[in-house]
């Protein structure tokens, strides 16, 4: 069955684009989650939509499960590791990495799955730096299309990466090619494909965000004209429970969109952890950081329990003086916040990460978080809270105690928009230590249960927990997903099990 599949794929796209070497299979199975590695059956590198289509048709004929990845940089959420061992990884990043179009009048780009944030940034700079792509603070080599489809987000006005995508080309599980939005019109000249989200008929785009119904091979992504000046601001607060006040201030700033960026509200360990490993942790002391060490870290870096970062855009730095004064007044009301100016933050590693993120500049600055503890274990728990200070505080107390119960370090950044803040909870652990691995898994599951009981769902999740989260959904939601899967991918060849579907 598998041999026949690979033979057919070799005929369709060339044998040189199939990789089944021992090292490749081992490494593509690796991930950072507690559940262990999952060795794929092979890795295939298509070069075009037509080749993806040929591979999907072959998978249908031979009953082989495919697992598409764009650049495979979803570290902490699954890497390039398939849902189950024995699936064939469809690595779209190697050859389908072209920027197909950049429209400098209407400010959008059209990309294939392998286009990374860095590649898009480089291309925009090359063209004169007139546009800004909204970036994550994750790896610069991460894929824009994959991030948008997994409901990833950045920090600028176009932070909602799926929301600011427009028009897709998708190879469905049944092998058909679908164009969404205005692209659905029969024909080949489609001037509205990547500019109009509301064309005739149902909005099918959403079906391909966090699903396994098709393989998106092309996507339009909107770009923001680059502002001549980006001026950041930062406020640091001394106490854990200051989060409530911060969230309430941020809500007002965002509801009116006075601040154009999202507001990054990071705790001490999140910020300090991007520079230092845990000072307390050792193989003989696999415990969370002590209060004393936490205080010492803060003092060393001149930060408090929470630090807020955001930025204004304008024609010049000087023109932004009034906005800076007003935002200082807003955060200054209670007297608890200490202001850190843009100029001071430029020389400060952890805050430079925020400046880059708000400026559409990809960077590796935040990856240091992953070495807070050694051993390569990393999970991201990604629920959120409504932008209500009291609820945010309730959630942080709950999460903080669950981390502590499992011997983990509470590391979080709340990314605040107007009504909702996504809580980027990081769990770093020594994956090579069985006890710590078990505790990390239990910690994640306990967080997932506790938040669900509070009525809060996750926005994204590590692959190991997709089934768990789908199990938390109401039956009608699950049944709908199953029914759509059956309609668009009847043989279940695309990533069965991903997002708990199929």
């Amino acid at each position, binding site marked *: 069955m598998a041999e026949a599949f690979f033979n057919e794929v070799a005929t369709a796209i060339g044998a040189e684009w199939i990789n089944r*070497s021992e*090292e*490749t299979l*081992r*490494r593509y199975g*690796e991930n*950072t989650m507690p559940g262990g590695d999952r060795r794929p059956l092979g890795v295939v*590198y298509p070069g075009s939509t037509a080749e993806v289509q040929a591979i999907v048709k072959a998978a249908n004929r031979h009953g082989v499960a495919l697992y598409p990845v764009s*650049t495979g*940089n979803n*570290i902490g959420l699954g*890497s*390039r590791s398939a849902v189950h061992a024995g699936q064939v990884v469809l*690595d779209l990043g*190697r050859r389908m990495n072209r920027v197909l179009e950049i429209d*400098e009048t209407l*400010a959008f780009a059209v990309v294939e799955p392998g286009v990374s944030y*860095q*590649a898009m940034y*480089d*291309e925009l*700079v*090359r063209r*004169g*730096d*007139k*546009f800004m792509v909204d970036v994550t603070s994750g*790896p*610069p*080599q991460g894929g824009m299309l994959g991030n948008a489809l997994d409901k990833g987000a950045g920090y600028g006005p176009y932070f909602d990466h799926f929301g600011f995508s427009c028009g897709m080309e998708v190879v469905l599980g049944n092998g058909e090619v679908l164009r969404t939005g205005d692209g659905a019109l029969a024909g080949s000249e489609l001037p509205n494909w990547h500019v109009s989200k509301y064309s005739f008929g149902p909005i099918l785009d959403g079906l391909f965000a966090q699903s396994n119904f098709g393989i998106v091979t092309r996507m339009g992504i909107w770009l*923001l*004209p*680059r*502002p*001549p*000046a*980006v001026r950041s601001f930062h406020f640091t607060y001394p106490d854990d429970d200051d989060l409530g006040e911060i969230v309430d201030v941020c809500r007002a700033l965002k509801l009116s969109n006075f601040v154009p960026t999202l507001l990054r509200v990071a705790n001490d360990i999140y910020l300090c952890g991007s520079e230092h490993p845990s000072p307390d942790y050792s193989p003989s002391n696999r415990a969370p950081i002590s209060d004393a060490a936490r205080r010492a870290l803060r003092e060393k870096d001149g930060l408090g329990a929470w630090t807020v970062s955001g930025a204004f*855009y*304008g*024609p*010049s*730095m*000087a023109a932004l003086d009034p906005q800076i004064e007003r935002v200082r007044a807003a955060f200054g009301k209670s007297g608890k916040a200490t202001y850190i100016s843009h100029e001071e933050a*430029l020389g400060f590693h952890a805050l430079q990460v925020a*400046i*880059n993120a708000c*400026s559409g*500049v990809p960077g*590796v600055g935040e*990856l*240091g*978080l*992953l*070495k807070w503890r*050694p*051993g*390569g274990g*990393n999970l991201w728990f990604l629920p959120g809270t409504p932008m209500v200070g009291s609820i945010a505080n309730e959630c942080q107390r709950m999460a903080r105690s669950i981390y502590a119960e499992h011997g983990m370090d509470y590391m979080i950044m709340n990314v605040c928009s107007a009504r909702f803040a996504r809580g980027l909870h990081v769990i770093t652990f020594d*994956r*090579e230590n069985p006890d710590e691995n078990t505790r990390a898994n239990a910690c994640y599951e306990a967080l997932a249960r506790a938040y669900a009981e509070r009525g809060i769902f996750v926005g994204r999740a590590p692959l190991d927990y997709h089934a768990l989260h789908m199990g938390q959904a109401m039956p009608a939601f699950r049944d709908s997903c199953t029914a759509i899967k059956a309609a668009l991918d009847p043989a279940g060849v695309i990533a069965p099990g991903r997002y708990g579907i199929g």
Partner: protein
Amino acid sequence: MQTDFTAEQLRDPAIREAADILGTCVHYGFCTNTCPTYVLSRDENESPRGRIDLIREMLESEAPPKAQTVAHLDSCLSCLSCMTTCAAKVDYAHLIDRARFHVERRHRRPPAERALRALLAFVLPRPRLFHAALALGRLGRHLQRLLPSRLRPLLAMIPERTRAQILAPQVFKAEGESRTRVALLAGCAQQVLDGNINAATIRLLTRHGCEVIVAAEAGCCGSLTLHMGREDEAMAAAAANVRSWMRERRGEGLDAVIVNASGCGTTVKDYGHLLGRTELAGEAKEIAGIARDVTEFLAGIGLRPAAPERPRLRVTYHDACSMQHGQCVTRPPRDLLRAVGFEVMDVPEKHFCCGSAGTYNLLQPATAETLGRRKAGHIDSTAPDVVAAGNIGCLTQLRRYVGAPMAHTVELLDWATGGPLPPALAGAALTNRPAPEPEEATAATSAPAPNDDAGFW
């Protein structure tokens, strides 16, 4: 990563260090995205983490290294792009060096390869010999077909024109009052390939109040032999330099050691490690502590642009890997070029190596050519008037593929502060680019200030 060294093996401090480094790799895989050889081949053994696994296996084993392992290690550029992107901060630089030393000692290469490596290691660090060899090589081009196939790519690599200027030990007095006294690493191959780089560096430094010495008995930094796995030769070269510069430091004083070839700079800044287990450890650390890339140093003292009008050129700045990944010096050259009035462009995919990598383009010509052409395509896409770089290796490699003239960063800075036109620009059509708006954009960006065509602010 877990290792399985014996207690006996771990008694060797070099193996102990390698074991510690190996232990920090957790296979996140970020490195694979930015490793040139992995991106080209998608072969895990051509990636940093793949090589780390091979090194572990090789060092743990008592047997001679496998030929296949050696091939994968040889094809590593040591560009250190992996170190910039590694979240676990694995010290790959010292690990691959250790692996190369091990290969050199325990593996017997085929005779032709052995001879070629020995030849390069002997000739390149000796400027006068290298100069003579280049002349011989140019003659040899006519007899290419008679030469062994392994030597032919070397002949193709010989530049059409070189400007050799081999400096004797001497002192160059500061113009006006002397503010600081520095030693220039005159280097080895660079003096033969392009003597104007040192000349421009000296003019630039003396013009800005520095007394520059070329110290007696200082020579090749050791980098070329280090990356060929010849540890003893590299250490000998480093030790000679440390002794020479320390004599100056103790004598009339030395504020900095200036390096204008970033490949060499990375090595000199690491002398503390290279000689860390020798009697020179303390002095080597001291020299490493005062080693500066010339642009780092100039950014510290500030430049005085000359008044005479020059065209405002678009300079596409190429980051040598040794500069961006090895030394993490990325802003000073750009800031200086902008400060003297050039428009500065980045190269797309700037984290990627151009294929030069010391002797790499001589030993692995096919991969080097692929990378050179790829880099040249990106450079050409920025429509430069001139391309600047801070490493002679990159300049020599890229001149073969890039359409625009190429100059060392110091040659442009020298010109902009009163020195002569860089030879690379002689006869070139120099277009005057429009001046920027008074207030530059955010410091985070690296291109010309945006205009209002796209958006309204």
